[in-house]
């Protein structure tokens, strides 16, 4: 399957597979390497996406650079006047 179609299938898989349901994950190909970037709400989701991509592309090296979003207290408030 050409890379272009494979990438399109992967983006739809991220959105449509119920275990993932993520619309904001970027996929970059670099030869035999595939880099995943984006932000998710839990470590479980980050790991799940990496595992699923490795299943889809067993011949590629998957670099999972997806990060979990922080939930710290807010920075300074913004004044709206």
């Amino acid at each position, binding site marked *: 399957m050409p890379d272009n179609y494979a990438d399109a299938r992967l983006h739809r898989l991220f959105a449509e597979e119920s275990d993932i*349901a993520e619309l904001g994950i970027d996929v970059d190909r670099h030869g035999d390497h595939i880099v995943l970037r984006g932000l998710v*709400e839990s470590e479980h989701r980050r790991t799940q996406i990496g595992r699923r991509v490795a299943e889809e592309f067993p011949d590629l090296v998957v670099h999972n650079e997806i990060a979990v*979003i922080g939930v*710290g207290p*807010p920075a300074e408030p*913004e004044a709206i006047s």
Partner: protein
Amino acid sequence: MTAGTAPTRIAAVGDVHMDQDVLGRFRPAVETLQDCADALLLAGDLTRHGTRDEAECVAREFGDLPVPVVAVLGNHDHHSDAADIVTKVLVDAGIIVLEGDGIVLQHHGVRVGVAGVKGFGGGFAGRCASAFGERVMKDFVRHAEEAAGSLTAALGSLECDTRVALTHYAPVPETLAGEPLEIYPFLGSYLLGEAIDAGRATIAFHGHAHRGSERGMTPGGVRVRNVAHPVIRQAFSVFHLSEDSATPGPL
């Protein structure tokens, strides 16, 4: 609003995508909300798939808080065709859920009106979808038009000092900066911006655009803030609405 009134403090976040694996993450920050905010706005995509179980996670995470919580639903919250159930679970937890209507919150004598709607896509002026051709295309555009129309009506119905618009989809392209241009029509609609201007809101909050930018403005000069969690990268953001920002007079 009287001279010297303290600012109304609004906390806002969207796209929290709750499920069992997220339960408890936001709770430490939101349990102390009263220290920094008078109300919390949730800008849609509260769940992953819009199921009852996920809605119950939202209820546990954002229910029973020391300040009023006002929400709109997002596209994820509609995925299981159970938006009514999601809404009921949230309402039962004390969360105010808006869809084409509004609520006036009173705080220290100041009336802050919040009008909310999910909204929809369609794109932005000069590069937007039109109600032409196939039935499915016309239905797509009509849904966006109806959402914007209900937001205009909801803003107009509020008797308050300051009007706030709350949507899931974006009303302006500025807060989408960072997203691929090709998907802008799926992220928002200029019709929402037009409604916000017509309704003379002081500020508009939205989510949906995870890779977007925080700050924008409508053509009519209303501040727009993208509070999607992946954009703000904190439990919520806080905005102080001063008396100078109050909506001047009735519509």
